Structure formats: C-alpha cells, structure tokens
C-alpha cells in the first residue's frame, strides 16, 4: 500500500467526483464539449443593463433559474449545481454526505432591489435609519439571509448533509 502515501508520507488525496458550471454550460460533458470545440463562454452581459459600464462582455451564467435573482441566490445555485454533480459521480447522492464542507465564495451583499424596496417604502424615518426601522418590521428571512456570510455554506450543508461547521473561504 505504499502508493497510498506521497513522498512526504502523507495520505494521497484522490479526486472521486467533479462538478462544474460555467458560462459554457452545466456539467463536465457540456463544458468539455464546448472547450474542445473551441467555443468561448464570453458573451455580451445580459444579467443586468450595461449602460454606462466600460465592460460589456463577461462569462456570465445567465441560464439558471436564479440568474436574475441577485448574487446570493445565484452563488448558491452555482454551488449547489456543481456539488450535486460531484457528489453523484462520487456515489454520495443520498443527501447524507457526512463529511466536512469547504466552500470558496464571494462575500454576500443585500440585493439593490431589496434596498430600493425598503428605502423607498412610505415609512417616516430619515436616511439610513429608515432602513433599520423598516427592517425591524419586515420579518423577511430571505432578505436577512442575504446579509449573513455563513448562509450559502449553511444551506449547502443542509442540502447535502455535510458534517460539522462548514468553512467559507474568501481568500482572493
């Protein structure tokens, strides 16, 4: 069993499942086909208007159900979609992975549509404090979760039955 250790005596890590989503498509098959056909996923941005922006093209994923639901929802769906493929390939598709979860993700940010809805509501308070007053009565778990940096990993942990405290890495 010497093959099971590397030259420093550490256990060799085997990759048993891979999942990908890019602007080229969902899954290894579509991505492989597109890449080997020389196709690029870079295209004009459609997820939001590009008026006034210097950049007008990007590898955006604009074909998922949450592509127009703000960055937190889309980040979750991207992660969920890729993880589902990886786990299925590795044979852990029963929702009880029972291993740790590490996820690299961008910071969360409340969507501007929610900020507009709260900031422009008819409530009386002034300026930034108005949002706080509206927030107090809003009781909208969805909006709250878009401000919590642990939310995406926590939802993934629920979805796939991972074990322990999930780690969200945001090192650039």
């Amino acid at each position, binding site marked *: 069993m010497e093959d099971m250790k590397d030259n420093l005596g550490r256990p060799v890590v085997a990759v048993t499942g891979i999942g990908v989503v890019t602007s080229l498509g969902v899954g290894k098959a579509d991505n492989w086909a597109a890449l080997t056909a020389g196709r690029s996923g870079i295209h004009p941005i459609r997820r939001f208007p590009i008026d*006034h922006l210097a950049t007008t093209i990007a590898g955006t994923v604009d074909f998922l159900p949450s592509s127009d639901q703000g960055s937190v929802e889309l980040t979750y769906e991207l992660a969920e979609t890729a993880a589902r493929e990886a786990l299925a390939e590795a044979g852990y598709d029963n929702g009880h992975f029972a291993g740790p979860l590490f996820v690299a993700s961008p910071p969360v940010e409340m969507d501007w549509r929610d900020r507009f809805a709260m900031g422009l509501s008819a409530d009386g308070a002034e300026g930034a404090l108005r949002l706080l007053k509206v927030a107090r009565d809003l009781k*909208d778990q969805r909006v*709250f979760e878009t401000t*919590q940096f642990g939310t995406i990993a926590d939802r993934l942990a629920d979805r796939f039955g991972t074990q322990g*405290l999930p780690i*969200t*890495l945001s090192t650039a």
Partner: protein
Amino acid sequence: MSASDVVITGIGLVSALGVGAQAHWAVLSAPGVKPVVDSTRYAPYSVHPMPEIDWSAQIAKRGDQRQMENWQRLGTFAAGLALDDAGTKGDEALCSTMDMIVAAGGGERDEAVDQAILDAAASRNDRDVLLNEKLTTELRPTLFLAQLSNLLAGNISIVHKVTGSSRTFMGEEGAGIAAVETAAARIRAGQSTHALVGGAFQTEHSDMLLAYELGGYLHRGPFAPVWERQGMEGGGVVTGSGAAFLVLESRDHAARRGHGSYAALGPVASGRHDRSSAGLARSIGALIAATAVPAGPLMAISGASGAHQATAAEQAALAEAGELLPRGMSTLTGHLKEAQFPFAIALAALAIRNGAAYPPFASAAERPVDGRPQAALATAIGYHRFEGAALVTAA
C-alpha cells in the same frame, strides 16, 4: 505536554473598554466594571463604541491608514498589537513564515452613495441603469476596497509583512471559530509552527446594524446585561466595535525562540446545530464536553450574544455542564461577530496568565470564582447559526 501543543504567545485586543491586552486585564480584573454604551447615536439601539485609538501606533503610514475604513483599521491595528505582544513584530524571518487566518465579514459601505442612489430612485423607474450611473461615477475606488472581506488579511500583510500562507474565512461567529480551530489543527499536525488568527467588527455603521435587525436580533430600550435581556424589547443583541487577534504557536516553536506564553489552547470544538429544531442546549452541552472540561469550578468566558434563543440555550447548557461560572463578555464589549470567539479565548488566556478569575461582568447573574484558574472555557454560540467552544489551560 507535547512539542506540538498550541500555546498563545501574543494577544491584541480592542473594544469599548480600551486598547491592548494589558488595558483589558486592568479594567476587567477590577470589581465593579461599568459597560461603555452609546444609547443615543443609533437609538433605539445601543452600541459599545470604538475607544480612542492612535492608529499610527500600529499603522505607521498615513497612506495605509487612508486606504482603509475603520473595520480594516481595527483589524490591522489589533493584529499589530498581537504581533508586538508575541515579540514577532518586525522580525522578518518570523513574519515571513507566519500563517494567517482572518475571520472576516464585510467592510463599510459608502452611506452617502447608497443614500444618493435611494434619493434618485424615488423619481426613476430604470433603477438598474441608475445603479450603473451612480456606482461608476460616485463610488470612490478606495472605499470599494475598504468593503472587501479579504482585504483585511491583505492589509495585515502589507502593513505588518505577515506573508506566510493567508486564508480568509467568512460566516459570522462561525468564521472566528473555524479560524481558531483550523490554525490550531495545523499546528498540532506539524503543518504550521506559528499563526496569526483573529477578526474585527466595526458596528458604528447603519448597514452593520441592519444585518442584525433584518433578522430581528437587536436589543432595544434600556441597556441590560447579556443574561438579563429575555423578555425585553427587541432581539437581545447589543453590538460593539472591536477586534481580537491571537498569535498561536507550537510549544516547541515558542520555546526555541525563548518566548513565554499566556496559556495553552486545548481542544477546540465546533458545530452546526439546525436552529429550526429543538435541542440546541444539548448540542452546546456536547460541544462543552468535547473540550474535556475538568471537574470542579471553572470560569467560562461566554461569547453569548444576547440573542434570546441561543443565549437561553447556552445558559441552560452551562448550568448543566458542571460547575461552570460564566462571564458574559458581551455585556461589556458588545457583540463582536467574527471576533467573538478569538476575543473570548483571549480573555480566558489573560486570566490564566494573571493567575486570577475575573469578578462578575456587571451582572447579578454571575458569581465570584475563587483561586488561581488552571483552565477556563471560552464559548461562541452564534446568534443565528454555528457554535464553538474551547478549553484554555495553563501553559
């Protein structure tokens, strides 16, 4: 005792109580400490504000100070304090091989730009276009950088030249728990010899309060100690500005460079209890048991936030776990979010090093602890999710 035990050799603290580990010990070890609370600026909410800080003491260059806002300044400053305390500041050999794990949320948004966009949106329907218009012209690039989560670690590298491996973890209290747990595990496994770990939180910004209040978590009305907010108006959390950084080392590494330590970091336990289900107190009890708390009276530096459900569960768990004598640090510091767990560990280590437990933290619910503490528990039970506990012992 083993060469790969984790010892705490440096502590950097900032809170409403003051600046530095020694200042915190001086304030907290004296009976009758009073919380520093500002109840007018964000009324009906209270906050524990930042103390007066001479940024230049740890961030020498004005240019570096200018390109940060207070969240990154707080973290960079406290990291500098910890490095100084550990005797590693400016030591190129030590800093260039030092690993770093920062627990980070986000930095301050530009409130004026946000408000300008909201004001303009009142009379416009093409709001997506309006956003592009305003964000491309009014958002100063430096302010955008101040918002980025991983630029706290970036600034620590730039200012203090800590340039070993660098990781930024996100996820409120859980980020601080995972940062400490991961750094300690790497040292115990021999993958790291010394690491800088910590986080900062700057609450004096409407958006930082908003992130709690969207979930109904903020306490309103008259200030009360963290254990005594059940049934009062609001959600029980009073936030604070501050930061906590620790220098963790293997016992062997600290001994070889001849540096003393505050305490040893024993088992670190973390968990993710499904908060929609019952049994949080039982899960916290299991975490405490996993830290191998010794028999007999033991001081517990609790990072309880005041959030009603989580705090009640933690109180129940502490009461059942043995002879634990809690000190609710948030009564005095406010909730420091990502910095909560490192801060609790720092206070535990300070008490062990100084050979005395803290008198009660301004709460009638806390009882005195006699004798020299040989160990202390530190907890951080997230206001909304994630839980952690660690045992800190005499080195």
